C-alpha cells in the first residue's frame, strides 16, 4: 500500500512539473523540453537502476536511441558549427578558384550512404554554381546516377534556373568499370564517356571545348564511401594526373582518408558533421543562401542527442561492470 501511495505521489509531482513547465516556457519550445526531459530523466532512472545492480535490457538502449533521434526531428534543435581546418580547406579551394573554372563532382554512393553524403554533395554543387564554375557531374556507381539526377532536378537546378545544360554544367552520368574508368579518363574523357546522359556527343558540349582529360580540370571532389571512391580518385587521377582532389565521404571511411591530407587530398568532409560545417560556411559567406535547405545542420541535433545517450550508456555499462567485479572480489 505504501509503495502504491509513493508511486501516486511521484506521478502527481511529475504532472505538476509538466503543467508548470507548460505555463512557464514558450509553446514552440515545449516539444524540445519534454523530449529532453524524457531522455535525461530516463537516463537518470537507468543510472540509478544500474547503481542498484539491476540489469538493463538491450531493447531499452534501442528505445533510447530511437527517442534521441526522433525527438529533435519532430522538435528541431539546431547548433552552430565552427568549420574545422580540413573542411575549410575544401571550402576555401572552391572559393579561391576564378569563376569559369571547371570542377568535376563525382557521385560515387548509393541510397544507404545518401543521408550523410548527399547533403555535402548538394552543398558543394550549390557553391560551385554560385561561384560561376563550370561543373561536370558524373558517377562511378550505378546507384549514384539516380541520386545525382535526384539532386540535380529536386535541389540544385531549381535554385539556379539561369544555368544552362552543356554550358554551365553537364551530367555525363554513370560508366561501369570502377578504377578502369578512372585509369582511362585521366588521359581521355571521350574514350569512356562518348556522350552525356542526353546522348549529346562530348565533342559538341561547350564545357568540353578545353577539357580533354582529368588533367585539364581545376578541381575534383569525389563523394562516396565505398569502392571505387575517394581513395581511387587519389590513386588513379589525383597523384598521376597532378590534379587537386577533395573527398566528401561517409563517416565510416573518413579515418582511412586522413593520411592523404593535406599532401594528396585538399580536404575531407567526413560524414554529416563535415556536411554541416560546409553548409554553415556557405550560409555565412553567402547571406542570400540563408534560406537554403540544410539537411546536414538539421541532422546535427539528432546526432548530438544520440551521442550523449551512447556516452551515457557507456558510463552506465562501466558502472555495472565495475560493481559486478567488486562484488565478485568481495565474495
Amino acid at each position, binding site marked *: 500500500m505504501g509503495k502504491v501511495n509513493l508511486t501516486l505521489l511521484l506521478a502527481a509531482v511529475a504532472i505538476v512539473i509538466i503543467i508548470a513547465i507548460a505555463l512557464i516556457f514558450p509553446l514552440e519550445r515545449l516539444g524540445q523540453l519534454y523530449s529532453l526531459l524524457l531522455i535525461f530523466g530516463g537516463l537518470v532512472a537507468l543510472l540509478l537502476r544500474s547503481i542498484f545492480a539491476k540489469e538493463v535490457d538491450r531493447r531499452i538502449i534501442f528505445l533510447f536511441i530511437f527517442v534521441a533521434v526522433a525527438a529533435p526531428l*519532430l522538435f528541431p534543435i539546431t547548433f552552430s558549427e565552427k568549420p574545422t581546418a580540413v573542411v575549410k580547406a575544401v571550402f576555401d579551394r572552391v572559393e579561391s578558384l576564378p569563376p569559369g573554372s571547371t570542377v568535376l563532382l563525382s557521385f560515387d554512393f548509393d541510397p544507404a550512404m545518401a543521408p550523410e553524403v548527399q547533403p555535402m554533395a548538394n552543398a558543394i554543387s550549390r557553391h560551385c554554381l554560385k561561384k560561376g564554375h563550370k561543373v561536370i557531374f558524373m558517377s562511378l556507381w550505378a546507384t549514384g546516377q539516380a541520386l545525382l539526377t535526384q539532386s540535380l532536378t529536386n535541389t540544385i537546378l531549381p535554385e539556379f534556373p539561369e544555368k544552362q545544360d552543356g554550358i554551365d554544367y553537364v551530367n555525363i552520368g554513370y560508366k561501369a*568499370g570502377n578504377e578502369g574508368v578512372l585509369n582511362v579518363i585521366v588521359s581521355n574523357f571521350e574514350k569512356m564517356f562518348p556522350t552525356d546522359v542526353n546522348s549529346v556527343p562530348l565533342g559538341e558540349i561547350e564545357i568540353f571545348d578545353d577539357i580533354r582529360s582529368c588533367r585539364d580540370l581545376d578541381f575534383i571532389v569525389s563523394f562516396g564511401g565505398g569502392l571505387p571512391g575517394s581513395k581511387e580518385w587519389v590513386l*588513379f587521377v589525383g597523384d*598521376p594526373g597532378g590534379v587537386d582532389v577533395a573527398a566528401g565521404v561517409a563517416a565510416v571511411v573518413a579515418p582511412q582518408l586522413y593520411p592523404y591530407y593535406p599532401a594528396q587530398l585538399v580536404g575531407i568532409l567526413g560524414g554529416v558533421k563535415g556536411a554541416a560545417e560546409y553548409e554553415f560556411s556557405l550560409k555565412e559567406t553567402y547571406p542570400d543562401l540563408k534560406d537554403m535547405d540544410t539537411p546536414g545542420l538539421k541532422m546535427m541535433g539528432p*546526432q548530438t542527442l544520440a551521442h550523449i545517450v551512447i556516452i551515457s550508456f557507456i558510463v552506465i555499462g562501466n558502472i555495472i561492470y565495475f560493481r559486478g567485479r567488486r562484488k565478485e572480489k568481495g565474495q
Partner: protein
Amino acid sequence: MRKVTIIVMAAVIVLFLASWILKAGAFQGEHDHYIIRGFLVTFAAFLTLAVMSFLYQDNPYYKFAEHLFVGVSAAFWMCMGFWTTIVQNLVPRLSTSLADFFEVPQRAEGLNFFFYTPVILGILLLLRLSRKIGWISRWPLAFIVGTTAGLNFIRYLRSDFIKQISSTFVPLLGRDWEGIGAFFSNLDLSATGQLVMMVSNWVIFLGVFCGLIYFYFSREHKGVFGAGSRVGIWILMITFGASFGYTVMGRISLLVGRITFLFRDWLELI
C-alpha cells in the same frame, strides 16, 4: 499457427491497407499514378519497420524484408551488369547491327575486334558451372587477378607507399623556424599557428615511430623499447577509437535518414 501470430498478421495487413488508401488519397491530384505511389511509400515504410523489428526479436517480417532485399539486389546488379557493361561498353565496339538493336550510340573509334578477348574470357568464366570442364574458368580468373594486381601495383606503390613515407617526414620545429626568441615573441595558438603545427608534427613523428616499434617482434619489448611499444599501442587504440566514433556517427546518420522518411514521407509529421 498460433492465435497471437494470426492476430498480429491481421493487424499488419489492416494497417498496411489503411496506410495505402490514405497515402493514395493524399497523392491524388499531385501524381498521375497515385495508387502505385501510395503503395510504394507504404511498402517502403513497412520494409523499414520490418527491418527495425529485428531489434525486438527475430520475426517473419524481418525475414521477409531480408530475403526480398537480397533477391532484389542480386537481380538489380545482374541487370545493371548486362546493360551498363555488356550493352554500353562492349556491344558498340563489337557489332554495328547489335549496337543499333540495343539503341546504343556508335563509338567514334569504330569496331575493335580486340574486344572479342573479354567475350571469350567471360564465356570461359561461366564454365565454372560445369563439373567436368570447370577448371578452365581458372584461366580468366588468373587473368583478372593478374591484371588487377599489375594495374594497382604502381598506383599503390606511388600513392600509398612513397608519398605516405614522404608525408611522414615533417619539420619537427614547424614551418619557418626563426629561433626560440622569435617563436615566443610571435606565439600563435590558432589551429594553423606554429605551436599547433609543431605539436602535430611531433605527434605524427612519434606516432609512426612508436607504432612501428609495436609491430617489431624480433626484439623483446622491454626498457626504452617497451616504453615505445606501449606508446605505440596507445596511438593505435586512439586511432581505433576515432574510427569507432566516426562509425557511430555514420550509423546514426542512417537511422536519421530512415526516421526522416517515416516522419516526412509516410506520416507527414515534419
